[in-house]
């Protein structure tokens, strides 16, 4: 599931009358209004071309929706079904406001990583935009979802919609039983940790929807018994407990905070554990997307560009269509330089598209430099090479593997070193022979979520004393935590039920800083 902010160009007003179909081959009339028939027709053509290029996809489902519906979809991270929470309302209000004021074009497409793959077409779009969205979402993103290894490992396109329905119903049911407020507070806390609710390395066990529901009750009972077992070691009254040395808990640091809480938080009720689990599952579902933004958008952009150009070469779409298309496409892949007031970081569409195009170029027209840098792929079959790249990488490794000197030059990449112990910033590399490899490594590292987010893990639990939970922040490059840390710790404490301590340690393991968060008295109503 991904949203794409393709900017819409101004609508053409004067549409030429539709031309007569010339014989057999389909020719899209030069008009900007779409009709169901024309969408069907152009979709057939896009599919034909996409299949010709060997794109493998889930079946497609195209849904025409209104701008309001697009805002609704936007507000719940693109999910067609989602549980109720105030934060989605906040999102909706924010979207609505900027949309009404005209500050923002809506995303023109939302595509859902499900089987069938659902893509939304907004009714306001011109015929050209509908074709662009179909090529981009239904063939680009769709084939990425189906084949990239992260999505194959972590997401189950068959089950997601069912799971969302289950989550929505389960949470609504909890609201009925335990009150909206209690559920809302719990969800707030889970959301604060949702980026820390993913398994980075472990492989998931896939469960179908039916099994999920079946096992849920068993799970409740089982989990609760495990937790009780864990806390049996808590001293009772005057009973003397042996100071057994090695009973450290957990035995290893845990990176998945929500998983740890779900399994081990002493006081959570079974339904609360289930909700923690739901947030964790959904977070895990989005995790591949957070790691493949450049690739996913680059891939989809590459394919809408390639497919529509082919349709133009074949005469299926005409000059007017192509002009309008190129205008949109150019906007999408524009990278403002750092000096521009529109600069807002690296545009993943621009970088991804440039790299995909570049791989094709290296295959088809390699230069000496390419042969030296990419001996394996220079001159190879571009379709196979690109397909391999799409399947087996995430942003970090994709950039480390494929970013070429040419793309670095085209983007005029340079790296800036900001060390707070120095007075000035230093330019550490630029787009020259000496800098290519360095920049490539740096840029790849920039897409490593492990570097982007603070590394915080469960370190230990005081099972013999106050039951406090200690988290460890392994500091990266001396970077401090942001000023929301205390707030997040309160949420951790709410879930854990006892005090929470956050230790910041340097790479040598020395503790630099300790933040303690006392658990507020739990209100265990209901």
């Amino acid at each position, binding site marked *: 599931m991904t949203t794409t902010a393709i900017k819409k160009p101004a609508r053409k007003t004067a549409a030429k009358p539709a031309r007569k179909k010339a014989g057999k081959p389909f020719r899209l009339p030069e008009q900007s209004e779409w009709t169901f028939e024309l969408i069907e027709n152009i979709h057939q053509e896009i599919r034909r071309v996409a299949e010709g290029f060997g794109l493998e996809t889930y079946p497609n489902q195209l849904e025409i929706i*209104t701008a309001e519906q697009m805002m609704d979809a936007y507000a719940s991270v693109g999910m067609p079904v989602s549980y109720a929470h105030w934060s989605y309302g906040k999102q909706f209000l924010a979207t609505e*406001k900027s949309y009404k004021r005209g500050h923002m074009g809506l995303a023109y497409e939302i595509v859902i990583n499900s089987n069938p793959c659902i893509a939304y077409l907004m009714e306001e779009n011109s015929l050209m935009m509908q074709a662009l969205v179909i090529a981009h979402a239904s063939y680009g993103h769709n084939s990425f979802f189906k084949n990239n290894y992260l999505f194959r490992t972590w997401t189950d396109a068959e089950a997601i919609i069912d799971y969302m329905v289950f989550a929505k119903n389960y949470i609504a049911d909890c609201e009925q039983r335990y009150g909206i407020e209690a559920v809302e507070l719990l969800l707030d806390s889970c959301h604060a940790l949702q980026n820390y609710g993913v398994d980075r390395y472990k492989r998931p066990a896939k469960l179908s929807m039916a099994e999920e529901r079946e096992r849920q009750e068993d799970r409740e009972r089982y989990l609760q018994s495990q937790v009780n077992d864990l806390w049996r070691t808590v001293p009772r009254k005057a009973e003397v407990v042996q100071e057994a040395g090695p009973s450290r808990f957990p035995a290893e640091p845990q990176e998945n905070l929500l998983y740890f809480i779900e399994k081990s938080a002493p006081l959570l009720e079974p339904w609360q554990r289930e909700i923690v689990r739901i947030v964790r599952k959904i977070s895990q579902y989005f995790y591949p997307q957070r790691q493949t933004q450049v690739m996913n958008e680059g891939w989809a952009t590459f394919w809408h560009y390639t497919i529509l150009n082919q349709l133009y070469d074949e005469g299926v779409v005409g000059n007017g269509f192509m002009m309008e298309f190129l205008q949109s496409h150019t906007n999408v892949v524009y990278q403002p330089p750092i000096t521009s007031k529109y600069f807002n970081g690296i545009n993943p569409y621009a970088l991804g598209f440039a790299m995909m195009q570049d791989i094709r170029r290296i295959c088809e027209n390699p230069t000496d430099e390419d042969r030296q840098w990419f001996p394996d792929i220079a001159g190879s079959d571009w379709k196979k090479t690109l397909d391999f790249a799409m399947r087996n990488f995430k942003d970090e490794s994709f950039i480390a593997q494929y970013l070429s000197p040419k793309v670095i030059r085209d983007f005029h990449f340079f790296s800036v070193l900001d060390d707070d112990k120095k*007075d000035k910033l230093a330019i550490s590399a630029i787009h020259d022979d000496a800098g290519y490899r360095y920049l490539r490594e*740096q840029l790849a590292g920039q897409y490593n979520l492990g570097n982007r987010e603070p590394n915080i893990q469960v370190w230990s639990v005081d099972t013999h004393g106050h039951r406090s939970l200690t988290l460890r922040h392994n500091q990266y490059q001396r970077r401090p935590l942001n000023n929301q840390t205390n707030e997040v710790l309160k949420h951790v404490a709410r879930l854990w039920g006892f005090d929470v301590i956050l230790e910041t340690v340097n790479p040598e393991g020395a503790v630099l800083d300790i933040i303690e968060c006392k658990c507020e008295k739990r209100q265990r109503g209901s």
Partner: protein
Amino acid sequence: MAYLIDRRLQGKNKSAGNRERFLRRYKGQIKDAVARAIKGRSIKDIEHGEKVSIPVKDINEPNFGHAHGGVWEVVRPGNKEYQKGDQIQRPKSGSGSGKGKAGNSEETSEDDFAFELTREEFMNYFFEDLELPNLVKTQLKSITEFKQQRAGYTVSGTPSNIHVLRSLRGALGRRIAVGSKSRKRLKEAEEELEVLMRTAFEDDHRILALRKEIHHLRTRLHAIPFLDPIDLRYSNRIKVPKPSSQAVMFCVMDVSGSMDQAKKDAAKRFFILLYLFLERAYEKIEVVFIRHHTQATEVTEDEFFNSRESGGTVVSSALYLLDKVIQERYASSDWNVYVAQASDGDNWDNDSVTCRELLINKIMPMVQYYAYVEITDGEPQNLWHEYTQIPDACPHFAMQKIESPADIYPVFRELFKKQPK
């Protein structure tokens, strides 16, 4: 393979529930914003949505993240001039890497989170402050006149309402319909008879039979009633509410020193309620503001609520002015005149008697309804004692006391409850 589905007609407003949850969660802030909005708005303008903003820090959803500090090395596009090893002044913001986000640092902007309440939402908050769970609509009955209006015809009614033309037209239709078979046969039989008469003898059995049949048919046709009860149609008349065309609402307020901002605010809410109430009954409402201390003046709404004048109090000055304005501008029978007077009740002793007499003798005969609210948490004052004598003479005079904002709505209801006829 591919499905193209038109979803446009389904499932709009999926986010309504979440939107409502958001509003409920930030109710406190939103209520404050609504209260501010009421102060800044004119009475007539109350039924619009409202922009509300909440400080971002209040609605932030916290996450772990990095702040600036330590070492950041970031790849940027668009180098024009730099060479490796160049040293650059740190930008003033202190963010090492220019503007834009560095990594995922979470320094959110300090702008408020702003959004718009719909009209309904705004009204809900407005009335909620009056401790009113649901809007007035069902409760407040407007004093509307009804007029009779024709609405087609019915099959039942009183004889005086029989519509002759409709009834006869129906009867004619029925007679044609019921008699058509016989009439057709009659015509045929007569033609057959005529033919036979030329060829056969008078006592031919066929002629006799035809004559008999013809007689039978004629009798039958005669037997069809000229007017049957089922033909009757009555004019249908229904009662429709007749909005009286126009009304004028006088807001009379004491602005002497003792009327502080809180009291004015309570008065304003009361006037707004009155306005909303009248709006349901009249197409056009004018609002006249009269304020007084020792002297009365007609003022704009802005001056009315925001003046800082003070001094003694002579309530009758306002009543004289009221009388004058009604006489001059709203005397014709086209106008429905309503007066709402708000005061803390403190009046110059001898003046209260004058007020009572003025009301009974001059003003009450000209107005539809006169509501007096005394906004005070103390004992009733002399004006109150004088006014209590008015309802006996004039049943369309009502008075109530408001001690706190929570009283406004109940008092309003008490004043405007449907009067038994």
